Protein backbone atom coordinates (compact mmCIF):
# COMPACT_ATOMS: atom_id res chain seq x y z
CA UNK A 1 0.00 0.00 0.00
CA UNK A 2 2.88 2.38 0.68
CA UNK A 3 3.67 2.35 -3.05
CA UNK A 4 0.11 3.25 -4.05
CA UNK A 5 0.62 7.05 -3.92
CA UNK A 6 3.71 6.61 -6.10
CA UNK A 7 1.70 4.62 -8.66
CA UNK A 8 -1.22 7.05 -8.62
CA UNK A 9 1.05 10.06 -9.03
CA UNK A 10 2.50 8.55 -12.17
CA UNK A 11 -0.93 7.83 -13.56
CA UNK A 12 -2.00 11.39 -12.80
CA UNK A 13 1.13 12.85 -14.37
CA UNK A 14 0.03 11.95 -17.89
CA UNK A 15 -3.65 12.29 -17.22
CA UNK A 16 -4.69 12.61 -20.86
CA UNK A 17 -2.99 9.35 -21.75
CA UNK A 18 -4.29 7.69 -18.61
CA UNK A 19 -7.84 8.92 -19.25
CA UNK A 20 -7.88 7.78 -22.87
CA UNK A 21 -6.50 4.38 -21.92
CA UNK A 22 -9.06 4.01 -19.16
CA UNK A 23 -11.78 5.10 -21.56
CA UNK A 24 -10.62 2.62 -24.19
CA UNK A 25 -10.58 -0.13 -21.61
CA UNK A 26 -14.00 0.97 -20.37
CA UNK A 27 -15.47 0.75 -23.88
CA UNK A 28 -14.05 -2.74 -24.21
CA UNK A 29 -15.53 -3.87 -20.89
CA UNK A 30 -18.80 -2.11 -21.62
CA UNK A 31 -19.10 -3.98 -24.92
CA UNK A 32 -18.05 -7.23 -23.34
CA UNK A 33 -20.61 -6.91 -20.53
CA UNK A 34 -23.42 -5.82 -22.84
CA UNK A 35 -22.79 -8.60 -25.34
CA UNK A 36 -22.32 -11.22 -22.65
CA UNK A 37 -25.52 -10.09 -20.94
CA UNK A 38 -27.43 -10.48 -24.19
CA UNK A 39 -25.91 -13.91 -24.78
CA UNK A 40 -26.61 -14.95 -21.20
CA UNK A 41 -30.22 -13.78 -21.50
CA UNK A 42 -30.69 -15.69 -24.75
CA UNK A 43 -29.07 -18.75 -23.25
CA UNK A 44 -31.26 -18.44 -20.17
CA UNK A 45 -34.35 -18.28 -22.33
CA UNK A 46 -33.26 -21.38 -24.21
CA UNK A 47 -32.62 -23.24 -21.00
CA UNK A 48 -35.99 -22.17 -19.65
CA UNK A 49 -37.75 -23.84 -22.56
CA UNK A 50 -39.80 -26.86 -21.60
CA UNK A 51 -38.59 -30.27 -22.72
CA UNK A 52 -42.20 -31.38 -22.81
CA UNK A 53 -43.11 -29.06 -25.64
CA UNK A 54 -42.38 -29.40 -29.35
CA UNK A 55 -42.86 -26.86 -32.07
CA UNK A 56 -43.78 -27.81 -35.60
CA UNK A 57 -43.09 -25.44 -38.45
CA UNK A 58 -42.74 -25.55 -42.21
CA UNK A 59 -39.63 -27.56 -43.14
CA UNK A 60 -38.38 -24.87 -45.50
CA UNK A 61 -38.71 -21.82 -43.29
CA UNK A 62 -40.63 -20.29 -40.45
CA UNK A 63 -42.19 -17.82 -42.83
CA UNK A 64 -44.19 -20.46 -44.71
CA UNK A 65 -47.54 -21.43 -43.17
CA UNK A 66 -48.91 -24.88 -42.50
CA UNK A 67 -52.41 -26.15 -43.35
CA UNK A 68 -54.96 -25.98 -40.56
CA UNK A 69 -55.77 -29.63 -41.18
CA UNK A 70 -52.43 -30.62 -39.68
CA UNK A 71 -53.67 -29.91 -36.16
CA UNK A 72 -55.93 -32.96 -35.92
CA UNK A 73 -53.40 -35.17 -37.66
CA UNK A 74 -50.67 -34.13 -35.23
CA UNK A 75 -53.04 -34.77 -32.33
CA UNK A 76 -53.42 -38.37 -33.51
CA UNK A 77 -49.71 -39.15 -33.20
CA UNK A 78 -49.02 -41.45 -30.24
CA UNK A 79 -47.36 -39.56 -27.40
CA UNK A 80 -48.98 -36.21 -28.31
CA UNK A 81 -51.12 -34.93 -25.46
CA UNK A 82 -52.23 -31.57 -26.83
CA UNK A 83 -51.76 -29.37 -29.90
CA UNK A 84 -52.34 -25.65 -30.41
CA UNK A 85 -51.99 -23.37 -33.37
CA UNK A 86 -49.55 -20.55 -32.55
CA UNK A 87 -49.28 -18.07 -35.38
CA UNK A 88 -46.91 -15.13 -35.32
CA UNK A 89 -48.97 -12.03 -36.07
CA UNK A 90 -46.33 -9.28 -36.03
CA UNK A 91 -48.89 -6.71 -34.97
CA UNK A 92 -47.86 -3.15 -34.22
CA UNK A 93 -49.42 -1.00 -31.59
CA UNK A 94 -49.78 2.60 -32.85
CA UNK A 95 -46.47 2.53 -34.73
CA UNK A 96 -43.46 0.38 -35.57
CA UNK A 97 -41.50 1.38 -32.49
CA UNK A 98 -43.97 -0.41 -30.26
CA UNK A 99 -42.84 -3.85 -31.18
CA UNK A 100 -43.74 -6.82 -29.01
CA UNK A 101 -44.45 -10.49 -29.50
CA UNK A 102 -48.04 -11.23 -30.44
CA UNK A 103 -49.52 -14.57 -31.40
CA UNK A 104 -52.85 -15.78 -32.65
CA UNK A 105 -53.42 -19.03 -30.75
CA UNK A 106 -55.92 -21.76 -30.09
CA UNK A 107 -56.50 -20.17 -26.72
CA UNK A 108 -57.82 -23.06 -24.66
CA UNK A 109 -55.20 -25.57 -25.78
CA UNK A 110 -52.41 -23.01 -25.61
CA UNK A 111 -53.14 -22.17 -21.98
CA UNK A 112 -53.21 -25.88 -21.17
CA UNK A 113 -49.85 -26.38 -22.84
CA UNK A 114 -48.38 -23.36 -21.03
CA UNK A 115 -49.46 -23.83 -17.41
CA UNK A 116 -46.76 -21.39 -16.28
CA UNK A 117 -48.87 -18.52 -17.65
CA UNK A 118 -50.80 -17.63 -14.53
CA UNK A 119 -54.17 -16.06 -15.32
CA UNK A 120 -56.84 -15.32 -12.70
CA UNK A 121 -59.77 -17.73 -13.30
CA UNK A 122 -62.25 -14.92 -14.05
CA UNK A 123 -59.89 -13.32 -16.56
CA UNK A 124 -59.21 -16.67 -18.14
CA UNK A 125 -62.92 -17.34 -18.56
CA UNK A 126 -63.48 -13.86 -19.94
CA UNK A 127 -60.66 -14.25 -22.41
CA UNK A 128 -61.84 -17.64 -23.61
CA UNK A 129 -65.38 -16.36 -23.98
CA UNK A 130 -64.54 -13.27 -26.05
CA UNK A 131 -63.42 -13.90 -29.63
CA UNK A 132 -61.81 -10.44 -29.71
CA UNK A 133 -60.33 -10.85 -26.27
CA UNK A 134 -56.62 -10.59 -25.67
CA UNK A 135 -54.37 -11.91 -22.94
CA UNK A 136 -51.29 -9.81 -22.25
CA UNK A 137 -48.22 -10.31 -20.11
CA UNK A 138 -47.78 -8.23 -16.98
CA UNK A 139 -44.59 -6.54 -18.26
CA UNK A 140 -46.30 -5.55 -21.50
CA UNK A 141 -49.38 -4.27 -19.69
CA UNK A 142 -47.21 -2.22 -17.35
CA UNK A 143 -45.23 -0.82 -20.25
CA UNK A 144 -48.29 0.54 -22.04
CA UNK A 145 -50.41 1.13 -18.96
CA UNK A 146 -53.02 -1.39 -20.12
CA UNK A 147 -55.61 -2.81 -17.81
CA UNK A 148 -58.38 -5.34 -18.16
CA UNK A 149 -61.21 -3.94 -20.29
CA UNK A 150 -59.00 -1.61 -22.35
CA UNK A 151 -59.48 -1.61 -26.10
CA UNK A 152 -56.33 -2.08 -28.16
CA UNK A 153 -55.77 -1.98 -31.92
CA UNK A 154 -52.98 -3.81 -33.70
CA UNK A 155 -51.99 -3.68 -37.34
CA UNK A 156 -49.86 -6.42 -38.89
CA UNK A 157 -47.43 -5.80 -41.72
CA UNK A 158 -47.63 -9.43 -42.88
CA UNK A 159 -49.62 -9.22 -46.15
CA UNK A 160 -52.19 -12.01 -45.51
CA UNK A 161 -53.10 -10.34 -42.22
CA UNK A 162 -53.68 -6.90 -43.71
CA UNK A 163 -57.41 -6.34 -43.91
CA UNK A 164 -57.55 -2.63 -44.57
CA UNK A 165 -58.23 -1.70 -40.98
CA UNK A 166 -56.66 -2.47 -37.60
CA UNK A 167 -57.60 -5.55 -35.61
CA UNK A 168 -59.63 -4.54 -32.56
CA UNK A 169 -59.00 -6.28 -29.27
CA UNK A 170 -60.25 -5.98 -25.73
CA UNK A 171 -57.85 -6.92 -22.99
CA UNK A 172 -59.59 -9.61 -21.01
CA UNK A 173 -56.74 -10.81 -18.88
CA UNK A 174 -53.25 -10.04 -17.71
CA UNK A 175 -51.01 -13.04 -17.10
CA UNK A 176 -48.09 -13.40 -14.72
CA UNK A 177 -45.57 -16.13 -14.18
CA UNK A 178 -44.17 -17.79 -11.12
CA UNK A 179 -40.68 -16.31 -11.12
CA UNK A 180 -39.41 -18.90 -8.66
CA UNK A 181 -40.56 -21.95 -10.58
CA UNK A 182 -40.11 -20.43 -14.02
CA UNK A 183 -37.57 -17.63 -13.79
CA UNK A 184 -37.27 -17.43 -17.57
CA UNK A 185 -40.99 -17.37 -18.30
CA UNK A 186 -42.11 -14.67 -20.71
CA UNK A 187 -44.50 -12.02 -19.36
CA UNK A 188 -44.33 -9.64 -22.26
CA UNK A 189 -46.39 -11.27 -25.01
CA UNK A 190 -49.81 -10.61 -26.42
CA UNK A 191 -52.13 -13.55 -27.23
CA UNK A 192 -55.44 -13.50 -29.00
CA UNK A 193 -57.79 -16.01 -30.59
CA UNK A 194 -56.78 -17.57 -33.87
CA UNK A 195 -60.44 -17.75 -34.81
CA UNK A 196 -60.57 -13.96 -34.84
CA UNK A 197 -57.62 -13.77 -37.24
CA UNK A 198 -59.13 -16.51 -39.39
CA UNK A 199 -62.54 -14.86 -39.60
CA UNK A 200 -61.17 -11.35 -40.08
CA UNK A 201 -59.06 -12.47 -43.03
CA UNK A 202 -61.99 -14.22 -44.68
CA UNK A 203 -60.58 -17.61 -43.77
CA UNK A 204 -57.55 -17.10 -45.97
CA UNK A 205 -54.93 -17.70 -43.31
CA UNK A 206 -53.20 -20.88 -42.32
CA UNK A 207 -51.22 -21.81 -39.20
CA UNK A 208 -47.80 -20.36 -38.55
CA UNK A 209 -46.69 -23.08 -36.15
CA UNK A 210 -48.10 -25.79 -33.99
CA UNK A 211 -47.03 -26.14 -30.41
CA UNK A 212 -47.31 -29.69 -29.13
CA UNK A 213 -47.40 -30.99 -25.60
CA UNK A 214 -46.07 -34.53 -25.30
CA UNK A 215 -46.51 -37.19 -22.64
CA UNK A 216 -42.87 -38.08 -22.16
CA UNK A 217 -39.97 -35.64 -22.71
CA UNK A 218 -37.66 -38.63 -23.21
CA UNK A 219 -39.61 -39.51 -26.35
CA UNK A 220 -39.44 -36.02 -27.82
CA UNK A 221 -37.23 -37.10 -30.73
CA UNK A 222 -39.46 -40.07 -31.62
CA UNK A 223 -42.64 -38.01 -31.45
CA UNK A 224 -41.06 -35.24 -33.51
CA UNK A 225 -40.00 -37.73 -36.18
CA UNK A 226 -43.45 -39.31 -36.19
CA UNK A 227 -45.07 -35.89 -36.72
CA UNK A 228 -42.72 -35.01 -39.57
CA UNK A 229 -43.20 -38.44 -41.11
CA UNK A 230 -46.92 -37.73 -41.35
CA UNK A 231 -46.30 -34.88 -43.75
CA UNK A 232 -43.30 -36.21 -45.63
CA UNK A 233 -43.55 -35.73 -49.39
CA UNK A 234 -46.47 -33.33 -48.97
CA UNK A 235 -46.64 -29.73 -50.24
CA UNK A 236 -45.91 -28.53 -46.74
CA UNK A 237 -43.39 -30.78 -45.10
CA UNK A 238 -42.78 -30.04 -41.45
CA UNK A 239 -39.90 -29.71 -39.10
CA UNK A 240 -40.62 -30.56 -35.51
CA UNK A 241 -38.18 -29.77 -32.77
CA UNK A 242 -38.07 -29.13 -29.06
CA UNK A 243 -39.08 -25.73 -27.83
CA UNK A 244 -35.46 -24.91 -26.97
CA UNK A 245 -34.27 -25.81 -30.47
CA UNK A 246 -37.16 -23.88 -32.00
CA UNK A 247 -36.35 -20.73 -30.02
CA UNK A 248 -32.68 -21.13 -30.91
CA UNK A 249 -33.64 -21.44 -34.57
CA UNK A 250 -35.82 -18.37 -34.28
CA UNK A 251 -32.94 -16.41 -32.82
CA UNK A 252 -30.59 -17.73 -35.49
CA UNK A 253 -32.73 -15.99 -38.12
CA UNK A 254 -30.48 -13.07 -37.26
CA UNK A 255 -27.44 -15.21 -38.16
CA UNK A 256 -25.11 -16.93 -35.78
CA UNK A 257 -25.69 -14.33 -33.12
CA UNK A 258 -23.45 -15.92 -30.54
CA UNK A 259 -20.53 -16.14 -32.96
CA UNK A 260 -21.10 -12.59 -34.16
CA UNK A 261 -21.30 -11.11 -30.67
CA UNK A 262 -18.29 -13.07 -29.47
CA UNK A 263 -16.28 -12.10 -32.54
CA UNK A 264 -17.05 -8.41 -31.98
CA UNK A 265 -16.09 -8.73 -28.33
CA UNK A 266 -12.86 -10.53 -29.17
CA UNK A 267 -11.85 -8.00 -31.82
CA UNK A 268 -12.46 -5.08 -29.48
CA UNK A 269 -10.65 -6.80 -26.64
CA UNK A 270 -7.62 -7.53 -28.80
CA UNK A 271 -7.51 -3.94 -30.03
CA UNK A 272 -7.65 -2.60 -26.51
CA UNK A 273 -4.90 -5.02 -25.48
CA UNK A 274 -2.64 -3.54 -28.17
CA UNK A 275 -3.56 0.04 -27.27
CA UNK A 276 -2.95 -0.52 -23.58
CA UNK A 277 0.30 -2.39 -24.24
CA UNK A 278 1.47 0.53 -26.35
CA UNK A 279 0.52 3.00 -23.62
CA UNK A 280 2.33 1.02 -20.96
CA UNK A 281 5.41 0.63 -23.16
CA UNK A 282 5.48 4.37 -23.77
CA UNK A 283 5.06 5.07 -20.08
CA UNK A 284 7.95 2.80 -19.14
CA UNK A 285 10.18 3.92 -22.02
CA UNK A 286 9.74 7.53 -20.94
CA UNK A 287 10.77 6.57 -17.45
CA UNK A 288 13.96 4.64 -18.15
CA UNK A 289 15.84 7.22 -16.09
CA UNK A 290 13.45 6.72 -13.23
CA UNK A 291 13.77 2.96 -13.37
CA UNK A 292 17.55 3.36 -13.25
CA UNK A 293 17.27 5.71 -10.28
CA UNK A 294 14.94 3.37 -8.40
CA UNK A 295 17.28 0.46 -8.94
CA UNK A 296 20.28 2.54 -7.89
CA UNK A 297 18.45 3.48 -4.69
CA UNK A 298 18.09 -0.21 -3.96
CA UNK A 299 14.68 -1.05 -5.37
CA UNK A 300 14.96 -4.70 -6.42
CA UNK A 301 14.00 -5.61 -9.97
CA UNK A 302 10.95 -7.52 -8.70
CA UNK A 303 9.66 -4.38 -6.96
CA UNK A 304 10.17 -2.26 -10.08
CA UNK A 305 8.29 -4.93 -12.02
CA UNK A 306 5.57 -4.81 -9.39
CA UNK A 307 5.29 -1.02 -9.66
CA UNK A 308 4.83 -1.15 -13.43
CA UNK A 309 2.30 -3.96 -13.12
CA UNK A 310 0.66 -1.99 -10.32
CA UNK A 311 0.12 0.90 -12.71
CA UNK A 312 -1.33 -1.49 -15.28
CA UNK A 313 -3.55 -3.00 -12.59
CA UNK A 314 -4.88 0.40 -11.60
CA UNK A 315 -5.61 1.21 -15.25
CA UNK A 316 -7.47 -2.09 -15.53
CA UNK A 317 -9.39 -1.45 -12.34
CA UNK A 318 -10.43 2.05 -13.42
CA UNK A 319 -11.27 0.94 -16.96
CA UNK A 320 -13.14 -2.10 -15.73
CA UNK A 321 -15.10 -0.11 -13.16
CA UNK A 322 -16.09 2.54 -15.68
CA UNK A 323 -16.93 -0.16 -18.22
CA UNK A 324 -19.23 -1.87 -15.74
CA UNK A 325 -21.03 1.38 -15.01
CA UNK A 326 -21.42 2.08 -18.74
CA UNK A 327 -22.52 -1.52 -19.35
CA UNK A 328 -25.09 -1.39 -16.59
CA UNK A 329 -26.46 1.92 -17.83
CA UNK A 330 -26.56 0.75 -21.44
CA UNK A 331 -28.40 -2.46 -20.59
CA UNK A 332 -31.02 -0.42 -18.76
CA UNK A 333 -31.18 2.05 -21.64
CA UNK A 334 -31.52 -0.73 -24.22
CA UNK A 335 -34.57 -2.08 -22.45
CA UNK A 336 -36.36 1.20 -22.90
CA UNK A 337 -35.06 1.84 -26.42
CA UNK A 338 -37.61 1.89 -29.25
CA UNK A 339 -37.95 -1.46 -31.09
CA UNK A 340 -34.93 -3.09 -29.49
CA UNK A 341 -36.36 -2.61 -26.04
CA UNK A 342 -39.47 -4.49 -27.07
CA UNK A 343 -37.39 -7.34 -28.44
CA UNK A 344 -35.47 -7.48 -25.21
CA UNK A 345 -38.64 -7.91 -23.20
CA UNK A 346 -38.48 -11.51 -24.46
CA UNK A 347 -35.67 -11.89 -21.95
CA UNK A 348 -37.20 -11.08 -18.62
CA UNK A 349 -33.97 -11.46 -16.67
CA UNK A 350 -31.96 -9.06 -18.76
CA UNK A 351 -29.53 -7.23 -16.51
CA UNK A 352 -25.87 -7.11 -15.61
CA UNK A 353 -25.34 -10.22 -13.51
CA UNK A 354 -22.68 -10.57 -10.85
CA UNK A 355 -21.08 -13.27 -12.97
CA UNK A 356 -20.81 -11.09 -16.07
CA UNK A 357 -19.67 -8.11 -13.98
CA UNK A 358 -16.97 -10.22 -12.31
CA UNK A 359 -15.92 -11.60 -15.69
CA UNK A 360 -15.76 -8.09 -17.12
CA UNK A 361 -13.68 -6.81 -14.23
CA UNK A 362 -11.38 -9.84 -14.41
CA UNK A 363 -11.01 -9.32 -18.16
CA UNK A 364 -10.07 -5.66 -17.61
CA UNK A 365 -7.46 -6.52 -15.01
CA UNK A 366 -6.04 -9.45 -16.99
CA UNK A 367 -5.90 -7.32 -20.16
CA UNK A 368 -4.12 -4.55 -18.31
CA UNK A 369 -1.66 -6.93 -16.68
CA UNK A 370 -0.98 -8.60 -20.03
CA UNK A 371 -0.42 -5.19 -21.57
CA UNK A 372 1.90 -4.22 -18.73
CA UNK A 373 3.81 -7.48 -18.64
CA UNK A 374 6.33 -6.83 -21.42
CA UNK A 375 7.27 -3.29 -20.31
CA UNK A 376 7.41 -4.51 -16.72
CA UNK A 377 9.77 -7.31 -17.70
CA UNK A 378 11.92 -4.86 -19.63
CA UNK A 379 12.13 -2.66 -16.53
CA UNK A 380 12.86 -5.74 -14.41
CA UNK A 381 15.70 -6.90 -16.64
CA UNK A 382 17.19 -3.53 -17.41
CA UNK A 383 20.78 -2.96 -16.35
CA UNK A 384 21.25 0.14 -14.22
CA UNK A 385 24.62 1.01 -15.69
CA UNK A 386 23.32 0.81 -19.26
CA UNK A 387 20.32 2.99 -18.48
CA UNK A 388 22.42 5.52 -16.57
CA UNK A 389 24.75 5.74 -19.55
CA UNK A 390 21.78 6.69 -21.75
CA UNK A 391 20.65 9.48 -19.44
Amino acid at each position, binding site marked *: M*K*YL*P*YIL*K*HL*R*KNWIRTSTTVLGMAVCIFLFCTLQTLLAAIDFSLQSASAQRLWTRHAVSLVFPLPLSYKSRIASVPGVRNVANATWFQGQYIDRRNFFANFAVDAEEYLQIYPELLVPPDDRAAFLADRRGALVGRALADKFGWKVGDAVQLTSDIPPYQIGRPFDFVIRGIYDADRVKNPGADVSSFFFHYEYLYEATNRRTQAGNYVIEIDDPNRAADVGQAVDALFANSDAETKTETEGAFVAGFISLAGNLSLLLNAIGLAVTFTILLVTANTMSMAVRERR*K*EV*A*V*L*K*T*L*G*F*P*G*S*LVLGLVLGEAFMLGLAGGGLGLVLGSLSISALQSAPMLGSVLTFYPNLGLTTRVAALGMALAVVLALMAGFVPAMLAYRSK*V*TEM*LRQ*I
Partner: protein
Amino acid sequence: MSTEQPQPSAAAPTIAVDVRNVRKVYSRDSQRIVVLDGIDLQVPEGEFLALMGPSGSGKTTLLNLIAGIDQPTSGHVIVAGTDVGSLSEGALARWRSRNVGFIFQFYNLIPVLTALENVELPLLLTSLSRRQRRERARLALTIVGLADRAKHYPRQLSGGQEQRVAIARAIVTDPAVLVADEPTGDLDAKSAEEILSLMTTLNQEFGKTIVMVTHDPRASHHAHTQRHLDKGVLAS
Protein backbone atom coordinates in the same frame (compact mmCIF):
# COMPACT_ATOMS: atom_id res chain seq x y z
CA MET B 1 21.33 9.85 11.33
CA SER B 2 24.64 10.00 13.19
CA THR B 3 25.79 13.51 14.05
CA GLU B 4 28.95 12.53 15.90
CA GLN B 5 32.26 13.66 14.55
CA PRO B 6 34.69 10.80 13.77
CA GLN B 7 37.31 10.64 16.47
CA PRO B 8 40.95 10.56 15.46
CA SER B 9 42.53 7.31 16.42
CA ALA B 10 46.10 6.23 16.87
CA ALA B 11 45.23 2.87 15.36
CA ALA B 12 45.11 2.32 11.58
CA PRO B 13 41.95 3.81 10.12
CA THR B 14 39.14 1.43 9.16
CA ILE B 15 38.88 0.95 5.44
CA ALA B 16 35.45 1.90 4.13
CA VAL B 17 36.13 1.00 0.51
CA ASP B 18 38.66 -1.62 -0.46
CA VAL B 19 39.15 -2.24 -4.15
CA ARG B 20 41.51 -5.14 -4.83
CA ASN B 21 42.99 -5.94 -8.19
CA VAL B 22 39.77 -5.13 -9.98
CA ARG B 23 39.37 -5.63 -13.72
CA LYS B 24 36.29 -4.65 -15.62
CA VAL B 25 35.95 -5.80 -19.18
CA TYR B 26 33.01 -5.04 -21.46
CA SER B 27 32.26 -7.12 -24.50
CA ARG B 28 30.79 -5.23 -27.43
CA ASP B 29 30.12 -7.45 -30.42
CA SER B 30 33.37 -9.36 -30.80
CA GLN B 31 35.45 -6.67 -29.10
CA ARG B 32 36.59 -6.83 -25.51
CA ILE B 33 37.13 -3.45 -23.95
CA VAL B 34 39.21 -3.33 -20.80
CA VAL B 35 37.79 -0.42 -18.81
CA LEU B 36 39.55 -1.04 -15.53
CA ASP B 37 42.77 -2.96 -15.35
CA GLY B 38 44.04 -4.14 -12.00
CA ILE B 39 42.76 -1.34 -9.81
CA ASP B 40 43.78 -1.28 -6.16
CA LEU B 41 42.26 1.43 -4.03
CA GLN B 42 41.65 1.82 -0.33
CA VAL B 43 39.43 4.57 1.01
CA PRO B 44 39.52 4.94 4.80
CA GLU B 45 36.35 5.73 6.72
CA GLY B 46 35.65 9.46 6.81
CA GLU B 47 37.72 10.06 3.69
CA PHE B 48 36.66 12.50 0.94
CA LEU B 49 38.20 11.14 -2.24
CA ALA B 50 38.10 12.77 -5.64
CA LEU B 51 38.52 10.48 -8.62
CA MET B 52 39.72 12.42 -11.60
CA GLY B 53 40.72 11.63 -15.11
CA PRO B 54 39.83 12.20 -18.73
CA SER B 55 36.64 10.95 -20.31
CA GLY B 56 36.71 7.21 -20.86
CA SER B 57 39.31 6.63 -18.21
CA GLY B 58 37.00 4.40 -16.19
CA LYS B 59 36.07 6.80 -13.36
CA THR B 60 32.34 6.22 -13.54
CA THR B 61 32.81 2.48 -13.95
CA LEU B 62 34.90 2.38 -10.79
CA LEU B 63 32.30 4.50 -9.00
CA ASN B 64 29.53 2.14 -10.14
CA LEU B 65 31.49 -0.82 -8.80
CA ILE B 66 31.92 0.90 -5.44
CA ALA B 67 28.22 1.78 -5.39
CA GLY B 68 27.31 -1.83 -6.10
CA ILE B 69 25.37 -1.10 -9.27
CA ASP B 70 27.89 -3.03 -11.35
CA GLN B 71 30.10 -5.98 -10.64
CA PRO B 72 33.77 -6.49 -11.45
CA THR B 73 34.92 -8.99 -14.06
CA SER B 74 37.59 -10.07 -11.60
CA GLY B 75 38.96 -8.88 -8.29
CA HIS B 76 37.11 -7.75 -5.18
CA VAL B 77 35.24 -4.62 -4.20
CA ILE B 78 34.68 -4.56 -0.46
CA VAL B 79 32.51 -1.74 0.81
CA ALA B 80 31.53 -1.34 4.46
CA GLY B 81 32.84 -4.85 5.07
CA THR B 82 30.85 -6.54 2.30
CA ASP B 83 32.35 -8.07 -0.82
CA VAL B 84 30.00 -6.55 -3.35
CA GLY B 85 30.87 -9.12 -6.02
CA SER B 86 29.68 -12.00 -3.85
CA LEU B 87 26.10 -10.77 -3.59
CA SER B 88 23.21 -11.82 -5.79
CA GLU B 89 21.32 -9.10 -7.64
CA GLY B 90 18.54 -9.00 -5.06
CA ALA B 91 20.93 -9.00 -2.11
CA LEU B 92 22.99 -6.33 -3.79
CA ALA B 93 19.92 -4.11 -4.17
CA ARG B 94 19.11 -4.54 -0.49
CA TRP B 95 22.73 -3.85 0.43
CA ARG B 96 22.77 -0.72 -1.73
CA SER B 97 19.66 0.65 -0.08
CA ARG B 98 21.34 0.50 3.33
CA ASN B 99 24.98 1.23 2.68
CA VAL B 100 25.41 3.57 -0.24
CA GLY B 101 23.99 6.95 -1.14
CA PHE B 102 24.29 7.90 -4.80
CA ILE B 103 24.46 11.46 -6.10
CA PHE B 104 24.01 11.86 -9.85
CA GLN B 105 25.27 14.59 -12.12
CA PHE B 106 21.76 15.40 -13.36
CA TYR B 107 20.08 15.01 -9.93
CA ASN B 108 17.60 12.44 -11.28
CA LEU B 109 14.75 13.42 -9.03
CA ILE B 110 11.38 11.84 -9.80
CA PRO B 111 9.43 14.67 -11.44
CA VAL B 112 5.98 13.63 -10.15
CA LEU B 113 7.12 13.58 -6.52
CA THR B 114 7.69 16.56 -4.25
CA ALA B 115 11.09 17.21 -2.71
CA LEU B 116 9.95 15.51 0.48
CA GLU B 117 8.58 12.49 -1.39
CA ASN B 118 11.77 12.20 -3.42
CA VAL B 119 13.82 12.15 -0.25
CA GLU B 120 11.42 9.66 1.31
CA LEU B 121 11.74 7.27 -1.64
CA PRO B 122 14.66 5.15 -0.35
CA LEU B 123 12.90 4.82 3.02
CA LEU B 124 10.00 2.99 1.33
CA LEU B 125 12.33 0.01 1.30
CA THR B 126 12.57 0.06 5.10
CA SER B 127 10.04 -1.03 7.69
CA LEU B 128 9.60 2.52 8.99
CA SER B 129 6.08 3.85 9.40
CA ARG B 130 4.88 6.66 7.18
CA ARG B 131 5.30 9.14 9.99
CA GLN B 132 8.83 8.00 10.73
CA ARG B 133 9.69 8.16 7.04
CA ARG B 134 8.36 11.69 6.79
CA GLU B 135 10.28 12.77 9.90
CA ARG B 136 13.52 11.38 8.54
CA ALA B 137 12.98 12.90 5.13
CA ARG B 138 12.28 16.30 6.73
CA LEU B 139 15.46 15.98 8.80
CA ALA B 140 17.49 15.22 5.67
CA LEU B 141 15.97 18.22 3.91
CA THR B 142 16.79 20.37 6.94
CA ILE B 143 20.40 19.23 6.80
CA VAL B 144 20.69 20.31 3.17
CA GLY B 145 18.89 23.58 3.97
CA LEU B 146 15.70 22.94 2.04
CA ALA B 147 13.12 22.28 4.73
CA ASP B 148 11.04 25.13 3.38
CA ARG B 149 10.91 23.53 -0.08
CA ALA B 150 9.55 20.18 1.06
CA LYS B 151 6.36 20.50 -0.95
CA HIS B 152 7.99 21.82 -4.08
CA TYR B 153 8.25 19.70 -7.18
CA PRO B 154 11.61 19.38 -8.97
CA ARG B 155 10.43 21.70 -11.75
CA GLN B 156 9.90 24.39 -9.13
CA LEU B 157 13.50 24.19 -7.88
CA SER B 158 16.76 25.56 -9.24
CA GLY B 159 19.52 23.18 -10.34
CA GLY B 160 21.42 23.72 -7.11
CA GLN B 161 18.32 23.08 -5.05
CA GLU B 162 17.54 19.96 -7.02
CA GLN B 163 21.02 18.65 -6.35
CA ARG B 164 20.61 19.41 -2.65
CA VAL B 165 17.39 17.42 -2.63
CA ALA B 166 19.27 14.61 -4.38
CA ILE B 167 21.90 14.78 -1.64
CA ALA B 168 19.19 14.65 1.01
CA ARG B 169 17.84 11.54 -0.75
CA ALA B 170 21.35 10.04 -0.69
CA ILE B 171 21.86 10.61 3.04
CA VAL B 172 18.34 9.86 4.29
CA THR B 173 19.10 6.19 4.97
CA ASP B 174 22.30 7.22 6.78
CA PRO B 175 24.62 5.21 4.52
CA ALA B 176 28.28 4.72 5.34
CA VAL B 177 29.45 5.72 1.90
CA LEU B 178 28.33 8.46 -0.47
CA VAL B 179 29.27 8.18 -4.12
CA ALA B 180 28.88 11.19 -6.36
CA ASP B 181 29.24 11.20 -10.12
CA GLU B 182 30.12 14.71 -11.28
CA PRO B 183 27.79 16.28 -8.69
CA THR B 184 28.61 19.81 -9.87
CA GLY B 185 28.81 19.02 -13.57
CA ASP B 186 25.46 20.60 -14.38
CA LEU B 187 25.66 23.58 -12.04
CA ASP B 188 26.84 27.15 -12.22
CA ALA B 189 29.89 28.12 -10.16
CA LYS B 190 27.92 29.48 -7.21
CA SER B 191 25.62 26.49 -6.94
CA ALA B 192 28.56 24.14 -7.44
CA GLU B 193 30.36 25.78 -4.54
CA GLU B 194 27.29 25.40 -2.34
CA ILE B 195 27.02 21.73 -3.18
CA LEU B 196 30.69 21.11 -2.53
CA SER B 197 30.42 22.94 0.80
CA LEU B 198 27.48 20.76 1.70
CA MET B 199 29.41 17.63 0.82
CA THR B 200 32.33 18.86 2.90
CA THR B 201 29.95 19.35 5.81
CA LEU B 202 28.59 15.85 5.38
CA ASN B 203 32.12 14.53 5.38
CA GLN B 204 33.45 16.57 8.24
CA GLU B 205 30.44 16.88 10.53
CA PHE B 206 28.62 13.65 9.79
CA GLY B 207 31.63 11.48 9.06
CA LYS B 208 30.44 10.31 5.67
CA THR B 209 32.97 8.62 3.46
CA ILE B 210 32.66 10.25 0.06
CA VAL B 211 33.95 9.06 -3.28
CA MET B 212 33.41 11.72 -5.93
CA VAL B 213 34.11 11.57 -9.63
CA THR B 214 34.84 14.95 -11.09
CA HIS B 215 36.50 16.75 -13.96
CA ASP B 216 36.43 20.02 -12.09
CA PRO B 217 39.72 20.95 -10.38
CA ARG B 218 37.83 23.31 -8.02
CA ALA B 219 35.67 20.41 -6.90
CA SER B 220 38.65 18.20 -6.33
CA HIS B 221 40.15 20.79 -3.98
CA HIS B 222 37.35 20.12 -1.51
CA ALA B 223 38.45 16.49 -1.28
CA HIS B 224 41.13 15.23 1.10
CA THR B 225 42.63 13.02 -1.53
CA GLN B 226 42.72 13.04 -5.31
CA ARG B 227 43.38 9.98 -7.42
CA HIS B 228 43.76 10.04 -11.15
CA LEU B 229 42.61 7.36 -13.51
CA ASP B 230 43.93 7.03 -17.00
CA LYS B 231 43.00 4.29 -19.44
CA GLY B 232 41.67 2.12 -16.66
CA VAL B 233 44.70 2.39 -14.45
CA LEU B 234 45.15 4.44 -11.31
CA ALA B 235 47.91 6.84 -12.17
CA SER B 236 48.45 8.53 -8.82
